[in-house]
């Protein structure tokens, strides 16, 4: 099986961006698929994990969102957006 190209992954991300407000579940599928493709290419994208975290937060799937935020901070501990989201998610879990 051949890996997806970067362009194919970017296409999925664009689709996810367009769908995120109207059809968030579908957007999630695109984002997860893009993450899988990125991993296959050896890319770890903090922004992609953050996008998924924000989507899961809106879907009120707090624990899953937190998992994604932790992934972001593993890759980029200076991402203040992820840090803020982590605090919000932590409060929601409490």
């Amino acid at each position, binding site marked *: 099986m051949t890996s997806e190209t970067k362009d194919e*992954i*970017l296409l999925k991300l664009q689709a996810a961006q367009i769908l995120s407000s109207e059809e968030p579940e579908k957007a999630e599928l695109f984002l997860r698929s893009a993450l899988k493709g990125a991993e296959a290419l050896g890319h770890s994208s903090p922004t992609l994990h953050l996008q998924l975290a924000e989507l899961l937060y809106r879907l009120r799937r707090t624990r899953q969102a937190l998992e994604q935020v932790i992934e972001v901070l593993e890759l980029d501990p200076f991402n203040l957006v992820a840090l803020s989201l982590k605090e919000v998610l932590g409060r929601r879990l409490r």
Partner: protein
Amino acid sequence: MLTGTKLEALLAKLRRALDERGSAEAAEQLFREVAAEARRLGFVSAYVHYVLAAALDRMGKLEMAFDELKKAVGADPLALPLRQAFQDVAARLRAALADPARAADDADIPRLYALLAAAGEADLEAHLAMVRFAVATAQLERARVLAEAVTTLFPAAREAWEALARVARAQGDVARATAADAEATVTGVQAPLFGVTGKATA
């Protein structure tokens, strides 16, 4: 995950930079310190480079912003928001380079062109601005190499052939100038139908 007092201190500095209202230069300095410290800790933070780029853009330091966005996209190549910001700044740099009000021998042209070409973001207009600069500053050999490369990269662009004809004529190469003129005549489209960007090499 990186934790500890060092990280906390850097995050505090980063927040100070974002909240800096008084001096944009002070904020820039703080951002740069955080980026450098992060690098020493083994992280190229796309986020820090992105917020630094935004600050530089607000200060009118477009070339520096472009440089920081290049680092951000390099650190996180699949981040659409970073790519979009990069494309936006690249477009503004291209517009600045090809500004009709800019003199053909403007000393900023080679720097702007090099910045765009190195990032693979130079378009037809950018290449032609550099050809015009080389002609205006009596670098005919350089102009010729570039013009030949531009016609290879944009064979359907009449302006590219016209530029080559002008350069060849200035060099006294009548045969090549005539051939380029002929190509320009049969090439009806003034600019490519789609925004093709790329680095012209001979």
